[in-house]
């Protein structure tokens, strides 16, 4: 029987609870957002005792379904002040699912200065005092836990950034190679730090595993779904070969690559940091151009990037990170960006928020444009050691802007805008404005249809059709985020007719349910609306569904594009 694990950090007690009937059909984002909306007072301080940190594997996690190993984490975000869900690969989702853990809820806050660790196993969860690993980076924590508890142990941890409760701190999850994937956005690492939990170790020895309601139907649907992933040119060939970083040249060409803290739409140094160059560099140095973030991933968009000596430097080296320190900070040395990526993983800090914060810091004159070495130094010596400057940058782009009087601060709901300029790719601007998560490209990835010709074509420079496009994608994404599926399954789902029905058939065969496509769309709508309701109750208003003012006034080259949606047009997003 599936269960809920509940940990109370105020009185240091744990409980195993039955899954309430109304949560039985939920997983991933639908479940974390439902629990946060039900149990967290919206007006509470995100780093106080009334916030809760919730982990939930997706509906299909732990099964043999391809790309189903995503873990959702949810809480009230200390960065945005609204609800947050952030999902991740790694090994934890599948371990939780096989252990029958529907969700792990961490509530309360210890009274003293002590630190703790949680140990999850088939018997439930225990709280232990933790001393030895405090202050250490994520790589050292994972290494220590693997030697202490065995290679197979699952790890969910925070680095120094989370211990300091910086609002750009993330939560790191061990991947199948013993490296790191991140619940990146919204400062969830600070919430874990506020609960004074350094790590959660997972032992799935003796796990009961998944009982499928209809194994034969599941197998058939799973085969069709996997075939769709493999057949689609984006998920089957493009992503495995070039990773997400193939987007540098595409967005440069389309004039949507935010450059020099969002002052231009193209970057002269694009060829030095692009996916094609990165692919050739990885191959030449003996790295791996293909790598999966979790077992059962058939897309393999990740990679292992080596340094000039052929030694491991980083993995999971994504377009958004490379854009953020590359075009946005004018750094052209890919090795410097890779080094920074690795340090950010170790500190446990969001590489999008932090990269955009560096862009604002460069605009403020704190460090020179394009100085990758100084970025790495600040990461290690200022953020890593918790100096005043380090804490400002580690609190995100908005914090840097407020502290240094910068007006060009690309954030929505105080969360940094990623890698696609909303003036020249207008659909994504609607997603940035309206997503309950704050500026988040993954919440409704209109780049697919605006730029990549997936799921049709909507002109990125015109306003027509963008609201509907963003709405439909945000609804679909809220549903997919609840299944445990990688969001890249949306590429085949948009183009291959058999893909989405196969996904629904797998859910039905897993649970013995009779869901239709309309039910899944309905789930997406329900999730979005309950997240929006939480935000309104937390004090956010439609005035928070806006891009920063400079996007309305500053034209961006080469298309001389400007953000020209009216408030009424943006607010119509919620008419569903």
């Amino acid at each position, binding site marked *: 029987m599936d269960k809920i694990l509940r940990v109370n950090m105020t009185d240091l007690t744990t409980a195993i609870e039955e899954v309430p009937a109304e949560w039985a059909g939920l997983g991933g984002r639908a479940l974390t957002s439902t629990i946060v909306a039900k149990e967290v007072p919206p007006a509470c301080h995100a780093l106080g005792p009334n916030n809760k940190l919730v982990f939930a594997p997706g509906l299909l996690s732990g099964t043999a379904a391809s790309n189903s190993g995503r873990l959702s984490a949810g809480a009230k975000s200390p960065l945005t002040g609204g609800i947050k869900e952030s999902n991740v690969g790694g090994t934890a989702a599948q371990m939780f699912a096989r252990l029958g853990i529907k969700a792990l809820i961490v509530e309360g806050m210890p009274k003293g200065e002590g630190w703790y660790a949680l140990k999850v196993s088939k018997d439930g969860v225990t709280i232990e005092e933790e001393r030895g690993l405090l202050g250490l980076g994520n790589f050292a924590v994972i290494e220590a836990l693997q030697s202490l508890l065995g290679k197979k142990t699952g790890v969910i941890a925070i680095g120094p950034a989370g211990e300091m409760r910086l609002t750009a701190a993330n939560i790191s999850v061990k991947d199948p190679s013993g490296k790191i994937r991140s619940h990146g956005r919204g400062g969830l690492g600070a919430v874990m730090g506020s609960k004074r939990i350094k790590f959660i170790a997972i032992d799935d020895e003796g796990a009961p595993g998944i009982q499928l309601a209809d194994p034969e139907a599941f197998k058939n649907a799973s085969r069709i779904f996997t075939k769709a992933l493999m057949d689609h040119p984006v998920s089957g060939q493009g992503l495995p070969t070039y990773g997400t970083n193939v987007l540098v040249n*595409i967005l440069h060409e389309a004039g949507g690559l935010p450059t020099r803290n969002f002052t231009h739409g193209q970057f002269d140094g694009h060829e030095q940091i692009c996916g094609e160059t990165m692919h050739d560099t990885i191959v030449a140095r003996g790295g791996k151009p293909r790598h999966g973030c979790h077992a059962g991933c058939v897309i393999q968009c990740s990679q292992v990037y080596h340094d000039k000596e052929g030694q491991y430097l980083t993995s999971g080296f994504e377009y958004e990170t490379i854009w953020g320190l590359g075009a946005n900070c004018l750094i052209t040395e890919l090795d410097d960006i890779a080094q920074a990526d690795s340090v950010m993983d170790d500190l446990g800090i969001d590489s999008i928020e932090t990269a955009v914060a560096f862009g604002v810091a460069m605009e403020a004159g704190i460090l020179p444009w394009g100085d990758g070495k100084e970025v790495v130094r600040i990461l290690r010596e200022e953020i890593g050691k918790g100096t005043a400057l380090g804490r400002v940058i580690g609190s995100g782009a908005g914090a840097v802007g407020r502290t240094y009087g910068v007006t060009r601060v690309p954030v929505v709901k105080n969360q940094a805008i990623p890698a696609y300029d909303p003036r020249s790719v207008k659909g994504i601007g609607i997603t940035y404005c309206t997503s309950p998560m704050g500026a988040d490209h993954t919440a409704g990835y209109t780049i697919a249809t605006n730029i990549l*010709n997936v799921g049709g*074509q909507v002109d990125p420079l015109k306003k027509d059709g963008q609201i509907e496009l963003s709405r439909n994608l945000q609804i679909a994404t809220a549903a997919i985020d609840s299944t445990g599926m990688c969001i890249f399954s949306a590429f085949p789902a948009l183009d291959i007719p058999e893909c989405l029905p196969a996904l629904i058939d797998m859910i039905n065969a897993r649970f013995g349910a009779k869901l239709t496509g309309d039910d899944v769309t309905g789930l997406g709508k329900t999730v979005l609306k309950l997240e929006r309701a939480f935000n309104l109750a937390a004090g956010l208003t439609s005035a928070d569904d806006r891009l920063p003012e400079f996007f309305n006034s500053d034209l961006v080259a080469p298309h001389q594009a400007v953000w020209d949606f009216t408030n009424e047009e943006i607010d119509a997003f919620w008419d569903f």
Partner: protein
Amino acid sequence: MAPITVTIKLFAHFRNGRFKEADHQFPPGVACREVILGLGFRLGEMGIVMVNGQHAPLDHPLSERDTLALFPLVGGG
């Protein structure tokens, strides 16, 4: 009529065995389709076709100093 010069940019695996960027000459008003076929591509291979940074249909006629960018179906996010 004098030929026009068009800058052609290729991306991802389209570069393999070809080039990154090159200027080619064509008759005025040549359609993107003819340029693509002339480079040895099949039309079905095309993911994104951009002229001067904007998506263009295959029958779009090219002018002097246009930039034609060709991408296979790729993506990320």
